[in-house]
């Protein structure tokens, strides 16, 4: 079975600063990795995904993530955040028949 660990429950940053949200996974099979964002009182929206190929994947809103198999990590990064990036971010891993989520990281961007 696969699982996901998000190492930071809350990440406060100032506007225009870079940010990294950390995610580690474990799985006994080939994995597919995802980052989702959830804005207040809204559903989940896909930011980006890694299925195969290039380990650096780019997503919407200027986010990118790097798949590192040796470190079993899939950290999310953005070089310059905006106030509007304030949200909950979930890392997820998908195996054969399900998708499991990490505990989430609350990103708060301050002016």
């Amino acid at each position, binding site marked *: 079975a696969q699982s996901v660990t998000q190492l930071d429950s809350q990440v406060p940053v100032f506007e225009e600063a870079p940010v990294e949200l950390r995610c580690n996974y474990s799985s006994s099979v080939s994995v*597919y990795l*995802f980052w*989702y964002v959830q804005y207040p009182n*809204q*559903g*989940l929206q*896909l930011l980006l*995904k890694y*299925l195969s190929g290039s380990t650096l994947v780019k997503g919407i809103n200027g986010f990118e993530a790097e798949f590192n198999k040796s470190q079993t990590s899939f950290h999310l990064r953005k070089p310059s955040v905006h106030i509007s990036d304030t949200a909950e971010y*979930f890392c*997820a891993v*998908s*195996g*054969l*028949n*399900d*998708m*499991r*989520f*990490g*505990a*989430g990281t609350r990103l708060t961007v301050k002016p």
Partner: protein
Amino acid sequence: SAVISQKPSRDICQRGTSLTIQCQVDSQVTMMFWYRQQPGQSLTLIATANQGSEATYESGFVIDKFPISRPNLTFSTLTVSNMSPEDSSIYLCSAGKGTGTEAFFGQGTRLTVV
């Protein structure tokens, strides 16, 4: 992509009653999932619903409490039975088109049990 419609969007229910949540997808999907999300918490997988077979429940969730139907490739229901205040949560329907594909989410059903 897939667009998921979930009904009702919210409800307030009396303890001891049951509520059935409907999930409609605008295209055929292989896998459908039901999650529960407590306020400020992550998503906990309740069960995976595959068309033509019994739902597969995660540890801590049982069919008698959360019966699921999956009559075709575009529709599923989750029933929360014999509700108690502890069942108050957001219930999310999700769908995927196969292994390794992203999951799409409905807007969720916000359930309050009084």
